[in-house]
């Protein structure tokens, strides 16, 4: 056998089924695609309102609405609904993010018509029964304590607040204990009535059917859905705070390790910089990415480190993350900042770039192995106003990114990292930060209020 691995062959491309769009009379945009290798069909109804549409004091409302859709309708209770989906072998789910609330259903071809009728039923006739509102709200509140017990999850929520303050991506989309406790059935029904409407929604439907049949099914089932009056203008996005270098520490002495996050607000999904940005993130992330090399492999500061980009309708968040020993927080923060800066100063080598781009395209191709995955990709394009044709250009656009464009994007979109957030045992590192940074704030965990744009009284 040869002593080293044979060279890879030339990369191969794939073509996704081209999505086709039509608009129904009620304003509902329908995007359909045919992919007929298996007898499966999936649909996602993308309602273009989510957590970003909530009031500050009602954080968690859109998530509560989405969670309640599948917990009973005016004609059947939660368990009957589950039984109806099971009888069809269907999956029926609803969830919300900042920019959208998404109701999805998938089933085998012969069952899909009936499964799609279930989607219609939960979208148009949810019961929001008081006992279900109470049950889901209680569960959401108890889930929050699990999130807060995890230093990394908490650091991410704090980072969002630091980056956006009172702008719509600042508050936690899952809400806080206080905001959830104040929400009841009336507000849930209000949000649903106001925002779940055909003229601000997109239906993505695809799989084992012709696109004409998909449009006919959409028209038959959702054609009678009416908007409650004219579509109001989308309220202006709140002002994103000006970048300011600062360190925010949440003191949690019981944390096993310190979560270290850093980042800044960067581009929106529809930005022409998007592909350079995801390649830049790939150069930083993964085992062989620069952050892990510097933080774990060279210095043993952590088990792992990486970076992510939340690409949204409005400028999203770039975040680096790692989990370190409390006593090495200052060192890790300095290494993280220098590593992110290196992206602007020291371009990736060609060999490295080939691999990091393969990471991006490989992940994309895996994501479109399933009908649900294709539907989710189509939905992302539609939601963020990216031309549908781009879905078949994704891999090529990634391949077109060169080292110079990664560095150029890093210089204007990632550097400097604006803030550092730490969640851990502050006694072990807060003083050291105070010696080198002029703007350091320490918040005891008990005083932290994620419901406040300033994270609690200052």
């Amino acid at each position, binding site marked *: 056998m040869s002593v080293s691995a044979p060279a890879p062959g030339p990369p191969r491309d794939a073509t996704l089924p081209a999505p086709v769009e039509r608009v129904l009379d009620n304003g509902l945009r329908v995007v359909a695609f045919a992919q007929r*290798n298996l007898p499966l069909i999936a649909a996602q109804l993308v309602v273009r309102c989510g957590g970003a549409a909530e009031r500050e004091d009602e954080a968690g409302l859109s998530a509560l609405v989405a969670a309640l859709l599948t917990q009973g309708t005016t004609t059947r209770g939660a368990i009957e609904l589950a039984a109806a989906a099971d009888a069809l*072998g269907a999956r029926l789910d609803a969830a919300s993010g900042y920019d959208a609330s998404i109701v999805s259903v998938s089933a085998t071809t012969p069952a899909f018509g009936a499964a799609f009728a279930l989607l219609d039923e939960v979208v148009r006739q949810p019961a929001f029964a008081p006992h279900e509102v109470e049950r889901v709200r209680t569960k959401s509140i108890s889930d929050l304590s699990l999130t807060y017990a995890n230093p990394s999850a908490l650091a991410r929520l704090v980072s969002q607040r630091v980056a956006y303050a009172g702008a719509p991506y600042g508050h936690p989309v899952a809400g806080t204990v206080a905001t959830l406790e104040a929400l009841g059935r009336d507000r849930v029904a209000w949000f649903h009535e106001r925002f779940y409407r055909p003229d601000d929604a997109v239906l993505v439907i695809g799989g084992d059917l012709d696109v004409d049949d998909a449009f006919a099914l959409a028209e038959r089932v959702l054609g009678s859905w009416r908007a409650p009056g004219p579509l109001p203008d989308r309220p202006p996005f709140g002002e994103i705070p000006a970048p300011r270098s600062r360190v925010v520490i949440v003191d949690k002495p019981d944390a096993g390790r310190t979560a270290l996050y850093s980042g800044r607000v960067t581009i929106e999904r529809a930005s022409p910089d998007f592909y350079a940005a995801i390649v830049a993130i790939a150069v930083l992330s993964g085992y062989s990415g620069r952050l892990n090399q510097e933080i774990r492999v060279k210095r043993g500061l952590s088990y792992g480190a990486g970076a992510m980009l939340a690409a949204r309708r409005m400028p999203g968040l770039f975040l680096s993350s790692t989990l370190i020993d409390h006593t090495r927080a200052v060192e890790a923060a300095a290494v993280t900042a220098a590593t992110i800066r290196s992206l602007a100063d020291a371009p990736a080598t060609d060999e490295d770039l080939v691999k990091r781009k393969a990471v991006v395209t*490989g992940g994309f191709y895996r994501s479109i192995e399933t009908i649900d995955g294709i539907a989710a990709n189509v939905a992302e394009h539609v939601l963020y106003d990216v031309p549908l044709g781009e879905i078949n250009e994704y891999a090529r656009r990634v391949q077109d990114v060169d080292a110079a464009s990664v560095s150029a994007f890093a210089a204007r979109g990632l550097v400097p990292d604006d803030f550092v957030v730490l969640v851990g045992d502050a006694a072990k590192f807060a003083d050291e930060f105070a010696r080198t940074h002029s703007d350091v704030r320490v918040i005891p965990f008990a005083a932290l209020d994620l419901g406040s744009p300033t994270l609690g009284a200052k």
Partner: protein
Amino acid sequence: MTVPTTISASAIDVAPIRYVDRTLANGLRAILVRDPRVPSVAINVAYRVGGKDDPAGRSGFAHLFEHLMFKGTARTGPETIDRLTEDVGGFNNAFTTEDITNYYEVIPSNHLERLLWAEADRLAGLVVNEDNFVTERDVVIGEYDQRILAEPYGMLDELVNREAYVAHPYRRGVIGSPAELNAASLDDVVAFHATYYRPDNAVLVVAGDLDVDATMRWIETYFGAIATPPTPIPRVQVVEPQQNAERRYEYRAANVPLPASEEAYHIPDAAHPDAAALDVLETLLGGGRSSRLYTALVYHKQLASSTYAAADLREQPGLFGIRVTCARGVPLEQARAALELELDRVRTQPPDDGEIERVRTQIASTVVRSRQTNNGVALTMARAVTERGDPELVNGDLARYLAVSAGDVLRVARTYLRPENRTVIEYLPQ
């Protein structure tokens, strides 16, 4: 608009999986499934060695080995497989069951030859030294501490295997015991590799964007060169004696949020004609929120916080497990009494047509969904060969589920879910 509320599962029409099946001269079985939709490919290498094959006094060995297979070879350093996959947009992992150890990679299809080389390389030339052996043994013991000792109900699976079998090595489970792992030597490890990691004990499945001829050529080049030792592969011959009276075992631990119990009934092997009906029985009792146990115990009577049923079909006779975790404040006897009523019902009355149709539709839909990813297809094929002896069985599974009648469900429930055929583990707080 009126729509049907149920469908006939027989309307779900899935094309058979087409594959090439070839056994090399050295005994390695290679199965290729071509699906070029996406430029991605999945490799599964399943070795017919699992927890049941651990040497006497060395429980946990097959699983320890799974870890050692990532430590490098004569030609490569540690974590080579990670670098060859994660760095080019793929991933890899492995798992060990009672019957097999399965290694898998999903990669962009232009990297297929490299990964076939790497898989052949670690079959042919694994290098284990005292250092990485000791390190990895500590990792496995750490996994035991974390998964079995620290997690709530972590010991339950171990207890089920240990108490339900009196003779068969399935009683030792997969993760083994720290004491036996600590007693192992490097010589034991080398002997284990020589005994089970050989071409005629492996099934290689490649599914996805591949060229059949080129792939077969690479497999011949890299795997075909590996010699097969002349000694026979040891196989477990122990037959578990028939159980004739219920056994009960009470376990108390510190980290038990709510009392729970699991009862395990002996069932036949995965290739047995009753296997499909047992899968249907599993879904009828425990599949989702419309299942009998969930609706009766969790939703209506509110005696349980969760319920679970599983036909654990294995290469050799397995177990049908039924687990119930009490609702807060409910004594275990009360939840178990309600469970017993449900079991009486399934043993004495056939399910009605609507219910059987619903369950068959659930199962058929799951089968269809599992065909969506290359790795799903590869794993399905690998398991069919190693656990049931024939890849073609995957193309008959849907028809076998559709052929299960209400009478079959009643019959298997009566045959296997008998109290004298079960072991009950009661898992209680201290």
